[in-house]
């Protein structure tokens, strides 16, 4: 099994406060589909921030694509970030760019030819149901629409890892299902998916997905060991995990 994300005894504290994440150890295999759940304030966003290289852990080893990114020179990090698509909990759309230009941003940053950008961006916007709103600025979009633009931006570059923080928090169940289908399609193309969510029905929709639970900054591992179960373990394990009260 090819580990694409490895956490080893990771701890994180903001400033001098208590650790918000402690002794986090797991490894996720390439091509897997993972959910991260936990109560509000449990540390889901904090964990994902480590994952999308917005924050350095205060201790432990974090490897992405087999390389230790904690000790890595910051000049090399943009290359890693480009391989990770992120749906931020607060969307983070660039306020003065249209929906179209926001979605095009990762492709432009990667230096893709302008001619090759238009088509995929329009297609992607149409897919998330915003074909008509391509020229709208974020401020004129509803919360759910902004979230869909954020998702389109995260997946447009077909990243190796997709990290999504509550990606369906602002959309109706119908749209949530559709967006999850988008993630699944991306997953079938080989992208490793990590989604933080409270939405249990959503989790149950992906049969082969695996789940991690955070409780007060610690990982509660359904297998009883600190390692996350490999993706081909019996589905019953997931069922047991889902069955636990959250």
């Amino acid at each position, binding site marked *: 099994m090819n580990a694409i994300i490895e956490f080893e005894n990771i701890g994180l504290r903001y400033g001098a406060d208590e650790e918000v994440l402690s002794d986090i150890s797991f490894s996720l295999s390439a091509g897997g589909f993972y959910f991260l759940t936990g109560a509000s304030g449990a540390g889901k966003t904090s964990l994902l921030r480590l994952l*999308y*290289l*917005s*924050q*350095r852990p205060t201790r432990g080893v974090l490897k992405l694509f087999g390389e230790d990114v904690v000790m890595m020179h*910051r*000049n090399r*990090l*943009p*290359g*890693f*970030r*480009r391989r*990770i698509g*992120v749906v*931020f909990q607060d969307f*983070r*759309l*660039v*306020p*003065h*760019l249209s929906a179209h*230009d926001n979605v*095009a*941003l*990762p492709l*432009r*940053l*990667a230096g893709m*030819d*302008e*001619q090759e950008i238009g088509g995929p961006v329009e297609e992607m916007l149409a897919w998330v149901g915003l074909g008509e709103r391509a020229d709208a600025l974020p401020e004129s979009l509803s919360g759910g629409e902004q979230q869909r633009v954020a998702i389109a*931006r995260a997946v447009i570059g077909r990243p190796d890892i997709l990290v999504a923080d509550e990606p369906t928090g602002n959309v109706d169940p119908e749209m949530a299902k559709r967006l999850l289908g988008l993630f699944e399609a991306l997953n079938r193309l080989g992208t490793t998916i990590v989604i933080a969510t409270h939405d249990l029905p959503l989790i149950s929709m992906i049969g082969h997905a695996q789940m991690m639970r955070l409780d007060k900054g610690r990982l509660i591992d359904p297998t009883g060991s600190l390692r996350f179960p490999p993706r081909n373990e019996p589905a019953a394990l997931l069922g047991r995990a889902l069955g636990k009260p959250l």
Partner: protein
Amino acid sequence: MREAGRWSDRAARAARSRWLPEGRRGPMPWIIAIMMFLTILAAAAVLSLSHALRQMHGELRGGYTVQIVEANPALRADQTRRVAAMLRAEKGIGGVAVVPEAQLRAQLEPWIGTDSPPEELPIPAMIDMEAAPGTPPARIDALARRIAAIAPSARIDAHERYLGPVERLMRALMWLAAGLVALMVGVTAAVVMLAARSAHATHRATIDIMHLLGATDIQIARLFQRRMGMDAIFGGTIGLAAAGAMLWLLGTRMSAIDAELAGLVRLPLPLMLLLPLIPLGGALLAMLTARITVRRALERTL
């Protein structure tokens, strides 16, 4: 194919420029324009004064005039001839020339008028001469004594002495202007730095997003660099145009005076061509400052 490439180049440029919001440039280009205007004027003053001083120095250094103040015209003519002959024979003394009386009268005409006959208002005879560079003052003193032996009424004046006070004034003005240039450069740098910082603060969120999407420090710094450089070039061009117009106006006023000294202060064309380097330098400074400001801020992030 070529056509398409160019089109996509242009589209890419347009897209990039949209990464930072357009418009609302604020007062920055105008402040730069004013700074550039003042800096260029002060620099023009430095250049023209130093040019004039150098010119004056070359012309005045070693120049002397012997005046023979003798009322009796015959005696005066005789003394003048003998002093000139003595000076011509002297080693290290050159350019000995008796200023023709007619020329002296013509120069004095505005003061004494044309109607008084020469006998009524005698004017001194004058002999110009030049001492070789490095001639010690003692040598000139000795020469003065020998001139006095021929013409007791003779006086010898160094050209430098007449213009010494003027030269000192011009030198003081030049240093003042140079000080102003230095101050303006410092203030311009500070303004550019503040502008870069405030632009960075304004676009903080955008920068964070681009950073997290995998933009490199250089990509982000380049956006700012371009923005600030464009502002500075805009301001610099306006400042240069205004200063150019001002200098041209002063030039025409100066040539209207047509005095020798005014001619001396005029800025020669090759030096004039140095002035556009100032806004150019300003633009480079602005770009460099923007780049450093943004990169420093980015380096504090992961």
